Protein backbone atom coordinates (compact mmCIF):
# COMPACT_ATOMS: atom_id res chain seq x y z
CA UNK A 1 0.00 0.00 0.00
CA UNK A 2 1.23 3.47 -0.91
CA UNK A 3 2.30 5.55 2.08
CA UNK A 4 3.46 9.08 1.37
CA UNK A 5 6.01 10.73 3.62
CA UNK A 6 3.92 13.89 3.99
CA UNK A 7 0.73 15.52 2.82
CA UNK A 8 0.73 18.99 1.29
CA UNK A 9 -2.49 20.92 0.75
CA UNK A 10 -2.90 24.02 -1.35
CA UNK A 11 -4.21 26.87 0.79
CA UNK A 12 -7.98 27.07 0.39
CA UNK A 13 -8.41 23.37 -0.57
CA UNK A 14 -8.35 22.00 2.95
CA UNK A 15 -12.05 21.16 2.95
CA UNK A 16 -12.25 19.53 -0.47
CA UNK A 17 -13.95 16.13 -0.09
CA UNK A 18 -10.97 14.22 -1.50
CA UNK A 19 -8.65 15.93 0.99
CA UNK A 20 -10.91 15.06 3.88
CA UNK A 21 -11.15 11.45 2.74
CA UNK A 22 -7.36 11.15 2.56
CA UNK A 23 -6.78 12.84 5.92
CA UNK A 24 -9.18 10.43 7.56
CA UNK A 25 -7.30 7.47 6.09
CA UNK A 26 -3.81 8.80 6.81
CA UNK A 27 -4.23 10.58 10.14
CA UNK A 28 -0.67 10.09 11.36
CA UNK A 29 1.11 11.82 8.46
CA UNK A 30 2.56 15.33 8.74
CA UNK A 31 0.44 17.91 6.89
CA UNK A 32 1.58 21.25 5.48
CA UNK A 33 -0.57 23.98 4.00
CA UNK A 34 1.30 25.46 1.04
CA UNK A 35 0.77 27.93 -1.78
CA UNK A 36 -0.35 26.65 -5.18
CA UNK A 37 3.06 27.25 -6.76
CA UNK A 38 4.88 25.64 -3.89
CA UNK A 39 6.63 23.08 -6.07
CA UNK A 40 8.18 25.63 -8.43
CA UNK A 41 9.46 27.76 -5.54
CA UNK A 42 10.81 24.94 -3.48
CA UNK A 43 14.56 24.85 -3.03
CA UNK A 44 15.33 21.24 -3.61
CA UNK A 45 17.97 19.63 -1.46
CA UNK A 46 20.48 17.39 -3.22
CA UNK A 47 18.66 14.17 -3.98
CA UNK A 48 19.92 11.19 -5.90
CA UNK A 49 16.37 10.32 -6.98
CA UNK A 50 14.10 13.39 -7.06
CA UNK A 51 11.50 11.51 -9.10
CA UNK A 52 11.24 8.75 -6.52
CA UNK A 53 11.11 11.33 -3.71
CA UNK A 54 8.41 13.28 -5.54
CA UNK A 55 6.18 10.21 -5.66
CA UNK A 56 6.21 10.00 -1.89
CA UNK A 57 4.89 13.53 -1.37
CA UNK A 58 1.15 13.80 -1.77
CA UNK A 59 0.03 17.26 -2.84
CA UNK A 60 -3.64 18.23 -3.07
CA UNK A 61 -4.15 21.13 -5.45
CA UNK A 62 -6.65 22.53 -7.95
CA UNK A 63 -6.27 21.77 -11.63
CA UNK A 64 -6.32 25.10 -13.42
CA UNK A 65 -5.79 23.79 -16.94
CA UNK A 66 -8.27 21.73 -18.95
CA UNK A 67 -8.83 18.19 -17.76
CA UNK A 68 -9.89 16.67 -21.06
CA UNK A 69 -7.09 16.13 -23.57
CA UNK A 70 -6.44 14.08 -26.64
CA UNK A 71 -4.22 11.09 -25.85
CA UNK A 72 -0.63 12.08 -26.57
CA UNK A 73 -0.13 8.80 -28.43
CA UNK A 74 -1.74 10.55 -31.39
CA UNK A 75 1.63 11.46 -32.88
CA UNK A 76 1.91 12.37 -36.58
CA UNK A 77 2.97 9.34 -38.61
CA UNK A 78 1.40 6.87 -36.20
CA UNK A 79 -2.04 5.30 -36.31
CA UNK A 80 -4.16 6.79 -33.55
CA UNK A 81 -7.31 5.40 -31.89
CA UNK A 82 -8.93 8.75 -31.03
CA UNK A 83 -8.71 8.24 -27.31
CA UNK A 84 -9.27 11.03 -24.82
CA UNK A 85 -7.69 11.29 -21.40
CA UNK A 86 -8.49 13.05 -18.16
CA UNK A 87 -6.12 13.19 -15.23
CA UNK A 88 -7.22 13.60 -11.64
CA UNK A 89 -3.79 12.55 -10.47
CA UNK A 90 -0.35 13.48 -11.77
CA UNK A 91 2.36 10.91 -11.12
CA UNK A 92 1.95 7.38 -9.91
CA UNK A 93 2.62 5.55 -6.66
CA UNK A 94 3.91 2.61 -8.69
CA UNK A 95 7.38 2.76 -10.17
CA UNK A 96 7.70 0.82 -13.43
CA UNK A 97 11.21 1.03 -14.81
CA UNK A 98 9.98 1.91 -18.32
CA UNK A 99 7.46 4.57 -17.27
CA UNK A 100 7.47 7.69 -19.45
CA UNK A 101 6.48 9.83 -16.45
CA UNK A 102 10.10 9.65 -15.31
CA UNK A 103 10.90 11.96 -18.18
CA UNK A 104 7.55 13.72 -18.61
CA UNK A 105 7.27 14.78 -14.97
CA UNK A 106 10.98 15.13 -14.24
CA UNK A 107 10.59 18.80 -13.33
CA UNK A 108 7.40 18.45 -11.30
CA UNK A 109 7.42 14.96 -9.85
CA UNK A 110 5.35 15.59 -6.71
CA UNK A 111 2.36 13.28 -6.75
CA UNK A 112 -0.51 15.69 -7.25
CA UNK A 113 -4.16 14.99 -6.65
CA UNK A 114 -6.57 17.48 -8.15
CA UNK A 115 -9.28 18.56 -5.76
CA UNK A 116 -11.78 19.91 -8.31
CA UNK A 117 -13.12 16.65 -9.73
CA UNK A 118 -16.49 18.38 -10.22
CA UNK A 119 -14.88 20.59 -12.86
CA UNK A 120 -13.66 17.49 -14.65
CA UNK A 121 -17.14 16.01 -14.77
CA UNK A 122 -18.59 19.32 -16.01
CA UNK A 123 -15.99 19.50 -18.73
CA UNK A 124 -16.65 15.95 -19.89
CA UNK A 125 -20.41 16.48 -19.81
CA UNK A 126 -20.09 19.58 -21.97
CA UNK A 127 -18.17 17.69 -24.63
CA UNK A 128 -19.97 14.33 -24.72
CA UNK A 129 -23.53 15.52 -24.14
CA UNK A 130 -23.27 17.97 -27.01
CA UNK A 131 -22.32 15.22 -29.47
CA UNK A 132 -24.72 12.37 -28.69
CA UNK A 133 -24.10 10.79 -32.11
CA UNK A 134 -20.41 10.29 -31.38
CA UNK A 135 -18.92 7.45 -29.32
CA UNK A 136 -16.18 8.58 -26.95
CA UNK A 137 -13.59 6.59 -25.05
CA UNK A 138 -12.03 8.42 -22.13
CA UNK A 139 -9.35 7.10 -19.81
CA UNK A 140 -7.92 8.22 -16.49
CA UNK A 141 -4.74 6.16 -16.70
CA UNK A 142 -2.46 8.53 -18.58
CA UNK A 143 -0.56 10.37 -15.83
CA UNK A 144 -1.18 7.83 -13.09
CA UNK A 145 -2.55 4.38 -12.43
CA UNK A 146 -6.35 4.74 -12.42
CA UNK A 147 -6.96 2.65 -9.31
CA UNK A 148 -3.73 2.48 -7.28
CA UNK A 149 -4.81 5.36 -5.02
CA UNK A 150 -8.54 4.88 -5.31
CA UNK A 151 -9.04 3.19 -1.95
CA UNK A 152 -7.48 6.31 -0.47
CA UNK A 153 -9.05 8.97 -2.68
CA UNK A 154 -12.33 7.40 -3.75
CA UNK A 155 -12.60 9.11 -7.16
CA UNK A 156 -14.32 6.14 -8.78
CA UNK A 157 -17.35 6.64 -6.57
CA UNK A 158 -17.98 9.85 -8.54
CA UNK A 159 -16.69 8.77 -11.94
CA UNK A 160 -18.46 5.43 -12.34
CA UNK A 161 -22.05 6.70 -11.79
CA UNK A 162 -21.35 9.73 -14.00
CA UNK A 163 -20.22 7.61 -16.95
CA UNK A 164 -22.73 4.83 -16.26
CA UNK A 165 -25.47 7.38 -16.94
CA UNK A 166 -24.21 8.21 -20.46
CA UNK A 167 -24.74 6.07 -23.53
CA UNK A 168 -22.14 7.62 -25.83
CA UNK A 169 -19.02 7.36 -23.73
CA UNK A 170 -16.93 4.60 -22.23
CA UNK A 171 -14.73 5.31 -19.23
CA UNK A 172 -11.56 3.26 -19.06
CA UNK A 173 -9.90 2.75 -15.68
CA UNK A 174 -6.44 1.44 -16.54
CA UNK A 175 -4.46 -0.19 -13.75
CA UNK A 176 -1.75 -2.55 -12.55
CA UNK A 177 -3.32 -2.86 -9.12
CA UNK A 178 -5.66 -5.39 -7.57
CA UNK A 179 -7.55 -2.91 -5.39
CA UNK A 180 -11.01 -3.25 -6.85
CA UNK A 181 -13.25 -4.04 -3.89
CA UNK A 182 -14.65 -0.52 -3.79
CA UNK A 183 -15.81 -0.87 -7.43
CA UNK A 184 -17.86 -3.97 -6.88
CA UNK A 185 -20.86 -2.23 -5.41
CA UNK A 186 -21.07 0.44 -8.10
CA UNK A 187 -23.36 0.00 -11.10
CA UNK A 188 -21.49 0.58 -14.37
CA UNK A 189 -24.27 -0.18 -16.90
CA UNK A 190 -21.61 -1.45 -19.30
CA UNK A 191 -20.15 2.03 -19.68
CA UNK A 192 -16.99 1.45 -17.63
CA UNK A 193 -14.08 -0.69 -18.79
CA UNK A 194 -11.62 -1.67 -16.09
CA UNK A 195 -8.45 -2.67 -17.87
CA UNK A 196 -5.18 -4.16 -16.78
CA UNK A 197 -1.80 -3.47 -18.18
CA UNK A 198 -0.05 -6.83 -18.30
CA UNK A 199 3.42 -8.17 -18.81
CA UNK A 200 4.47 -11.76 -18.08
CA UNK A 201 5.45 -12.43 -14.46
CA UNK A 202 9.16 -12.48 -15.41
CA UNK A 203 8.86 -8.80 -16.37
CA UNK A 204 6.17 -7.73 -13.90
CA UNK A 205 8.20 -9.03 -10.95
CA UNK A 206 11.41 -7.29 -11.95
CA UNK A 207 10.39 -4.13 -13.82
CA UNK A 208 7.00 -3.08 -12.41
CA UNK A 209 7.84 -2.02 -8.87
CA UNK A 210 4.99 -1.54 -6.45
CA UNK A 211 2.40 -3.17 -8.70
CA UNK A 212 0.18 -6.17 -8.00
CA UNK A 213 1.58 -9.53 -9.17
CA UNK A 214 0.32 -10.81 -12.53
CA UNK A 215 -1.96 -13.46 -11.03
CA UNK A 216 -3.49 -10.96 -8.60
CA UNK A 217 -4.30 -8.61 -11.46
CA UNK A 218 -6.07 -11.45 -13.24
CA UNK A 219 -7.99 -12.41 -10.12
CA UNK A 220 -9.09 -8.79 -9.75
CA UNK A 221 -10.14 -8.74 -13.42
CA UNK A 222 -12.33 -11.78 -12.94
CA UNK A 223 -14.01 -10.30 -9.88
CA UNK A 224 -14.66 -7.00 -11.60
CA UNK A 225 -16.06 -8.81 -14.63
CA UNK A 226 -18.34 -10.87 -12.42
CA UNK A 227 -19.58 -7.62 -10.91
CA UNK A 228 -20.79 -6.48 -14.34
CA UNK A 229 -17.94 -4.35 -15.63
CA UNK A 230 -16.43 -4.69 -19.06
CA UNK A 231 -12.74 -5.43 -18.84
CA UNK A 232 -9.74 -4.89 -21.08
CA UNK A 233 -6.07 -5.85 -21.29
CA UNK A 234 -3.08 -3.95 -22.55
CA UNK A 235 0.07 -5.82 -23.42
CA UNK A 236 1.85 -2.54 -23.56
CA UNK A 237 4.75 -2.26 -23.33
CA UNK A 238 5.46 -5.40 -25.25
CA UNK A 239 9.00 -6.21 -24.25
CA UNK A 240 11.40 -8.29 -26.29
CA UNK A 241 13.70 -10.49 -24.22
CA UNK A 242 15.07 -14.01 -24.71
CA UNK A 243 11.93 -15.87 -23.59
CA UNK A 244 9.32 -13.32 -24.71
CA UNK A 245 7.31 -15.58 -26.98
CA UNK A 246 6.71 -18.41 -24.51
CA UNK A 247 6.07 -16.03 -21.63
CA UNK A 248 3.63 -13.74 -23.44
CA UNK A 249 1.74 -16.63 -25.00
CA UNK A 250 1.42 -18.25 -21.57
CA UNK A 251 0.25 -14.93 -20.16
CA UNK A 252 -2.47 -14.74 -22.81
CA UNK A 253 -3.52 -18.30 -22.05
CA UNK A 254 -3.79 -17.46 -18.36
CA UNK A 255 -5.87 -14.38 -19.12
CA UNK A 256 -8.47 -16.30 -21.07
CA UNK A 257 -8.42 -19.22 -18.66
CA UNK A 258 -9.39 -16.70 -15.97
CA UNK A 259 -11.89 -14.32 -17.58
CA UNK A 260 -14.79 -14.70 -19.97
CA UNK A 261 -13.76 -13.38 -23.41
CA UNK A 262 -17.33 -12.25 -24.09
CA UNK A 263 -16.94 -9.49 -21.54
CA UNK A 264 -13.59 -8.25 -22.82
CA UNK A 265 -13.95 -4.87 -24.48
CA UNK A 266 -10.50 -4.84 -26.08
CA UNK A 267 -6.95 -6.07 -25.97
CA UNK A 268 -4.13 -3.85 -27.12
CA UNK A 269 -0.49 -4.41 -27.93
CA UNK A 270 2.19 -1.76 -28.06
CA UNK A 271 5.91 -2.18 -28.43
CA UNK A 272 8.15 -0.77 -25.70
CA UNK A 273 9.11 2.76 -26.72
CA UNK A 274 11.69 4.92 -25.05
CA UNK A 275 13.01 8.34 -25.96
CA UNK A 276 16.79 8.67 -25.80
CA UNK A 277 16.54 10.74 -22.62
CA UNK A 278 14.17 8.25 -21.01
CA UNK A 279 16.71 5.51 -21.76
CA UNK A 280 19.26 7.50 -19.78
CA UNK A 281 16.88 7.89 -16.85
CA UNK A 282 16.02 4.19 -16.89
CA UNK A 283 19.70 3.27 -16.98
CA UNK A 284 20.36 5.56 -14.03
CA UNK A 285 17.35 4.68 -11.85
CA UNK A 286 17.27 0.96 -12.65
CA UNK A 287 20.82 -0.15 -13.46
CA UNK A 288 19.83 -3.84 -13.29
CA UNK A 289 17.06 -3.52 -15.87
CA UNK A 290 16.94 -5.84 -18.87
CA UNK A 291 14.61 -3.54 -20.76
CA UNK A 292 17.34 -1.82 -22.69
CA UNK A 293 18.81 -5.08 -23.97
CA UNK A 294 16.25 -5.72 -26.68
CA UNK A 295 17.13 -5.09 -30.31
CA UNK A 296 15.78 -1.55 -30.39
CA UNK A 297 16.38 1.11 -33.02
CA UNK A 298 15.60 4.82 -33.15
CA UNK A 299 12.35 5.40 -35.07
CA UNK A 300 11.08 8.44 -36.97
CA UNK A 301 9.10 9.73 -33.97
CA UNK A 302 12.30 9.95 -31.92
CA UNK A 303 11.61 6.83 -29.86
CA UNK A 304 13.55 3.59 -29.62
CA UNK A 305 11.53 0.49 -30.44
CA UNK A 306 12.27 -3.13 -31.25
CA UNK A 307 13.22 -3.11 -34.93
CA UNK A 308 10.26 -3.39 -37.24
CA UNK A 309 10.59 -6.94 -38.56
CA UNK A 310 10.96 -8.33 -35.05
CA UNK A 311 8.09 -6.38 -33.56
CA UNK A 312 5.85 -7.39 -36.46
CA UNK A 313 6.78 -10.98 -35.64
CA UNK A 314 5.89 -10.35 -31.99
CA UNK A 315 2.53 -8.78 -32.83
CA UNK A 316 1.67 -11.59 -35.27
CA UNK A 317 2.58 -14.30 -32.80
CA UNK A 318 0.52 -12.82 -29.98
CA UNK A 319 -2.46 -11.68 -32.03
CA UNK A 320 -2.58 -15.12 -33.63
CA UNK A 321 -2.63 -16.62 -30.12
CA UNK A 322 -5.31 -14.13 -29.08
CA UNK A 323 -7.41 -15.03 -32.12
CA UNK A 324 -7.28 -18.70 -31.22
CA UNK A 325 -8.18 -18.05 -27.58
CA UNK A 326 -10.74 -15.28 -28.01
CA UNK A 327 -11.58 -14.70 -31.69
CA UNK A 328 -14.25 -12.09 -31.09
CA UNK A 329 -12.26 -9.76 -28.86
CA UNK A 330 -11.40 -6.44 -30.55
CA UNK A 331 -7.68 -5.83 -30.80
CA UNK A 332 -5.53 -2.85 -31.70
CA UNK A 333 -1.97 -1.64 -31.57
CA UNK A 334 -0.83 1.50 -29.81
CA UNK A 335 1.58 4.01 -31.36
CA UNK A 336 2.32 1.98 -34.46
CA UNK A 337 2.85 3.03 -38.06
CA UNK A 338 0.51 2.28 -40.94
CA UNK A 339 3.10 -0.08 -42.55
CA UNK A 340 3.17 -2.15 -39.35
CA UNK A 341 -0.66 -2.29 -39.25
CA UNK A 342 -0.56 -3.39 -42.88
CA UNK A 343 1.92 -6.16 -42.16
CA UNK A 344 0.14 -7.36 -39.01
CA UNK A 345 -3.53 -7.09 -39.98
CA UNK A 346 -3.28 -7.06 -43.77
CA UNK A 347 -4.89 -3.62 -43.80
CA UNK A 348 -4.17 -0.24 -42.31
CA UNK A 349 -6.86 2.10 -41.00
CA UNK A 350 -7.93 4.78 -43.44
CA UNK A 351 -8.24 7.31 -40.65
CA UNK A 352 -8.19 7.58 -36.86
CA UNK A 353 -11.93 7.11 -36.63
CA UNK A 354 -11.61 3.63 -38.19
CA UNK A 355 -9.68 2.32 -35.19
CA UNK A 356 -12.01 3.97 -32.71
CA UNK A 357 -15.05 2.47 -34.47
CA UNK A 358 -13.44 -0.98 -34.53
CA UNK A 359 -13.39 -0.86 -30.73
CA UNK A 360 -16.97 0.19 -30.24
CA UNK A 361 -18.41 -1.83 -33.14
CA UNK A 362 -16.92 -5.32 -32.80
CA UNK A 363 -17.86 -6.40 -36.34
CA UNK A 364 -15.24 -3.92 -37.55
CA UNK A 365 -12.50 -5.38 -35.38
CA UNK A 366 -9.02 -5.51 -36.85
CA UNK A 367 -8.27 -8.70 -34.99
CA UNK A 368 -10.90 -10.73 -36.78
CA UNK A 369 -9.20 -11.36 -40.11
CA UNK A 370 -5.45 -10.98 -40.21
CA UNK A 371 -4.45 -12.20 -43.66
CA UNK A 372 -1.16 -13.67 -42.51
CA UNK A 373 -3.06 -16.14 -40.38
CA UNK A 374 -5.22 -17.52 -43.16
Amino acid at each position, binding site marked *: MYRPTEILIERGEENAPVVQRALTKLPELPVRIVEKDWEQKETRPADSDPFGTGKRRLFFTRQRARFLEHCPAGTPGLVCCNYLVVSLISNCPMDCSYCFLQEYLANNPTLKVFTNSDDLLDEVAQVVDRQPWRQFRIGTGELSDSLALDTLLGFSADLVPFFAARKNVLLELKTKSDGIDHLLGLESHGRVVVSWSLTPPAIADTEEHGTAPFTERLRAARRVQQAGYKIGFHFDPLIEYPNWETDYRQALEQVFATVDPRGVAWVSFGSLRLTPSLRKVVRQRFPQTRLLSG*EQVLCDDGKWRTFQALRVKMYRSLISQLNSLAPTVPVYMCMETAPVWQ*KVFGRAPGCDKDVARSLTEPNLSYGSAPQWDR
Partner: protein
Amino acid sequence: MATRDEPAWQIAAYAQRKRLSDTTLARWRAWPATDQAALFSLLQDLQCGENHLKDLLDWLEEIVARDEQTVAAILEQRELRSARATSGSRHDKLKAVKAVLRKLRYPRLTRLEENVRRAVKALDLGRTSQVAFPPDFEGDEVTVTLTVRNVHELRDILSQLQRRLDDGRFQRVFEALDEV
Protein backbone atom coordinates in the same frame (compact mmCIF):
# COMPACT_ATOMS: atom_id res chain seq x y z
CA MET B 1 46.67 5.47 -2.39
CA ALA B 2 46.62 3.82 -5.82
CA THR B 3 49.94 3.21 -7.54
CA ARG B 4 50.59 3.63 -11.23
CA ASP B 5 50.37 -0.12 -11.79
CA GLU B 6 46.92 -0.44 -10.35
CA PRO B 7 43.92 -0.54 -12.68
CA ALA B 8 42.14 2.27 -10.81
CA TRP B 9 45.04 4.63 -11.42
CA GLN B 10 45.37 3.55 -15.04
CA ILE B 11 41.67 4.05 -15.70
CA ALA B 12 41.74 7.48 -14.07
CA ALA B 13 44.78 8.41 -16.17
CA TYR B 14 43.03 7.23 -19.34
CA ALA B 15 39.93 9.23 -18.44
CA GLN B 16 42.01 12.33 -17.88
CA ARG B 17 43.92 11.90 -21.13
CA LYS B 18 40.70 11.39 -23.13
CA ARG B 19 38.79 14.05 -21.17
CA LEU B 20 36.00 11.62 -20.32
CA SER B 21 33.01 13.03 -18.50
CA ASP B 22 32.51 12.20 -14.83
CA THR B 23 29.32 10.32 -15.73
CA THR B 24 31.05 8.07 -18.24
CA LEU B 25 33.93 7.40 -15.88
CA ALA B 26 31.50 6.66 -13.03
CA ARG B 27 29.65 4.13 -15.20
CA TRP B 28 32.87 2.36 -16.08
CA ARG B 29 34.00 2.34 -12.47
CA ALA B 30 30.69 0.92 -11.28
CA TRP B 31 31.59 -2.35 -13.00
CA PRO B 32 33.27 -5.25 -11.20
CA ALA B 33 37.05 -4.81 -11.11
CA THR B 34 37.77 -7.59 -13.63
CA ASP B 35 35.33 -6.05 -16.11
CA GLN B 36 36.85 -2.59 -15.64
CA ALA B 37 40.27 -4.04 -16.33
CA ALA B 38 39.08 -6.00 -19.38
CA LEU B 39 37.66 -2.85 -20.97
CA PHE B 40 40.77 -0.91 -20.10
CA SER B 41 42.86 -3.53 -21.87
CA LEU B 42 40.68 -3.18 -24.98
CA LEU B 43 40.92 0.60 -24.84
CA GLN B 44 44.70 0.36 -24.80
CA ASP B 45 44.34 -0.89 -28.37
CA LEU B 46 41.49 1.33 -29.48
CA GLN B 47 42.28 4.61 -27.71
CA CYS B 48 38.71 5.80 -28.21
CA GLY B 49 37.21 8.93 -26.77
CA GLU B 50 33.94 9.72 -25.03
CA ASN B 51 31.41 8.98 -27.78
CA HIS B 52 32.79 5.65 -28.94
CA LEU B 53 33.35 4.65 -25.33
CA LYS B 54 29.71 5.39 -24.51
CA ASP B 55 28.64 3.08 -27.34
CA LEU B 56 30.88 0.36 -25.93
CA LEU B 57 29.54 0.88 -22.42
CA ASP B 58 25.93 0.81 -23.63
CA TRP B 59 26.33 -2.30 -25.73
CA LEU B 60 28.41 -4.20 -23.19
CA GLU B 61 26.04 -3.41 -20.32
CA GLU B 62 23.06 -4.40 -22.44
CA ILE B 63 24.64 -7.70 -23.49
CA VAL B 64 25.58 -8.41 -19.86
CA ALA B 65 21.98 -7.80 -18.74
CA ARG B 66 20.53 -9.94 -21.54
CA ASP B 67 22.97 -12.86 -21.54
CA GLU B 68 24.00 -12.80 -17.89
CA GLN B 69 27.66 -12.79 -18.87
CA THR B 70 30.53 -10.67 -17.63
CA VAL B 71 32.16 -7.98 -19.73
CA ALA B 72 35.45 -9.83 -19.36
CA ALA B 73 33.89 -13.00 -20.81
CA ILE B 74 32.35 -11.11 -23.71
CA LEU B 75 35.62 -9.42 -24.59
CA GLU B 76 37.39 -12.78 -24.53
CA GLN B 77 35.23 -14.15 -27.36
CA ARG B 78 37.16 -15.33 -30.39
CA GLU B 79 35.55 -12.95 -32.87
CA LEU B 80 36.38 -9.98 -30.68
CA ARG B 81 39.93 -11.11 -30.17
CA SER B 82 40.32 -11.41 -33.94
CA ALA B 83 38.88 -7.93 -34.43
CA ARG B 84 41.35 -6.55 -31.90
CA ALA B 85 44.14 -8.20 -33.82
CA THR B 86 43.09 -6.53 -37.08
CA SER B 87 46.05 -5.02 -38.82
CA GLY B 88 45.81 -1.39 -39.76
CA SER B 89 45.17 1.83 -37.96
CA ARG B 90 43.50 2.27 -34.60
CA HIS B 91 40.49 3.50 -36.50
CA ASP B 92 40.36 0.20 -38.44
CA LYS B 93 40.60 -1.77 -35.20
CA LEU B 94 37.88 0.34 -33.60
CA LYS B 95 35.63 -0.19 -36.60
CA ALA B 96 36.23 -3.95 -36.56
CA VAL B 97 35.64 -4.25 -32.81
CA LYS B 98 32.48 -2.16 -32.94
CA ALA B 99 31.16 -4.23 -35.84
CA VAL B 100 31.61 -7.43 -33.86
CA LEU B 101 30.12 -5.93 -30.70
CA ARG B 102 27.16 -4.57 -32.63
CA LYS B 103 26.59 -8.06 -34.04
CA LEU B 104 26.60 -9.48 -30.51
CA ARG B 105 24.30 -6.73 -29.32
CA TYR B 106 21.91 -6.87 -32.29
CA PRO B 107 22.18 -10.47 -33.55
CA ARG B 108 18.87 -10.59 -35.44
CA LEU B 109 19.07 -7.12 -36.89
CA THR B 110 22.59 -7.69 -38.20
CA ARG B 111 21.50 -11.05 -39.64
CA LEU B 112 18.62 -9.31 -41.39
CA GLU B 113 20.99 -6.66 -42.74
CA GLU B 114 23.29 -9.37 -44.05
CA ASN B 115 20.42 -11.28 -45.69
CA VAL B 116 19.11 -8.14 -47.35
CA ARG B 117 22.60 -7.23 -48.52
CA ARG B 118 22.99 -10.71 -50.05
CA ALA B 119 19.57 -10.50 -51.72
CA VAL B 120 20.42 -7.11 -53.23
CA LYS B 121 23.80 -8.37 -54.38
CA ALA B 122 22.08 -11.30 -56.07
CA LEU B 123 20.11 -8.83 -58.19
CA ASP B 124 23.40 -8.11 -59.89
CA LEU B 125 22.16 -4.78 -61.22
CA GLY B 126 25.52 -3.10 -61.65
CA ARG B 127 26.20 0.56 -61.06
CA THR B 128 23.24 1.91 -62.97
CA SER B 129 20.66 0.78 -60.41
CA GLN B 130 20.70 1.24 -56.69
CA VAL B 131 18.36 -0.25 -54.13
CA ALA B 132 18.00 1.59 -50.84
CA PHE B 133 16.06 1.00 -47.64
CA PRO B 134 14.87 3.22 -44.82
CA PRO B 135 17.23 3.51 -41.82
CA ASP B 136 17.18 0.30 -39.76
CA PHE B 137 14.45 -0.98 -42.13
CA GLU B 138 11.72 1.03 -40.38
CA GLY B 139 8.86 1.58 -42.81
CA ASP B 140 7.90 -0.16 -46.02
CA GLU B 141 9.49 1.88 -48.76
CA VAL B 142 12.21 0.43 -50.93
CA THR B 143 13.80 2.98 -53.22
CA VAL B 144 15.17 1.86 -56.57
CA THR B 145 17.25 4.52 -58.29
CA LEU B 146 18.12 4.22 -61.97
CA THR B 147 20.89 6.25 -63.54
CA VAL B 148 20.89 6.38 -67.33
CA ARG B 149 22.30 8.61 -70.05
CA ASN B 150 20.01 7.68 -72.93
CA VAL B 151 16.96 5.70 -73.97
CA HIS B 152 19.00 2.61 -74.83
CA GLU B 153 20.46 2.43 -71.36
CA LEU B 154 17.03 2.92 -69.89
CA ARG B 155 15.60 0.11 -72.03
CA ASP B 156 18.48 -2.20 -71.01
CA ILE B 157 18.10 -1.51 -67.36
CA LEU B 158 14.33 -1.88 -67.41
CA SER B 159 14.57 -5.22 -69.12
CA GLN B 160 17.16 -6.32 -66.59
CA LEU B 161 14.81 -5.28 -63.80
CA GLN B 162 12.00 -7.21 -65.46
CA ARG B 163 14.19 -10.32 -65.59
CA ARG B 164 14.90 -9.95 -61.87
CA LEU B 165 11.20 -9.64 -61.20
CA ASP B 166 10.51 -12.74 -63.28
CA ASP B 167 13.21 -14.89 -61.72
CA GLY B 168 12.06 -14.03 -58.18
CA ARG B 169 15.20 -12.22 -57.07
CA PHE B 170 13.32 -9.02 -56.31
CA GLN B 171 10.76 -11.04 -54.40
CA ARG B 172 13.65 -12.40 -52.34
CA VAL B 173 14.69 -8.85 -51.37
CA PHE B 174 11.23 -8.10 -50.01
CA GLU B 175 11.06 -11.44 -48.22
CA ALA B 176 14.41 -10.81 -46.56
CA LEU B 177 13.06 -7.59 -45.06
CA ASP B 178 10.54 -9.52 -42.98
CA GLU B 179 12.70 -12.47 -41.94
CA VAL B 180 13.74 -12.66 -38.31
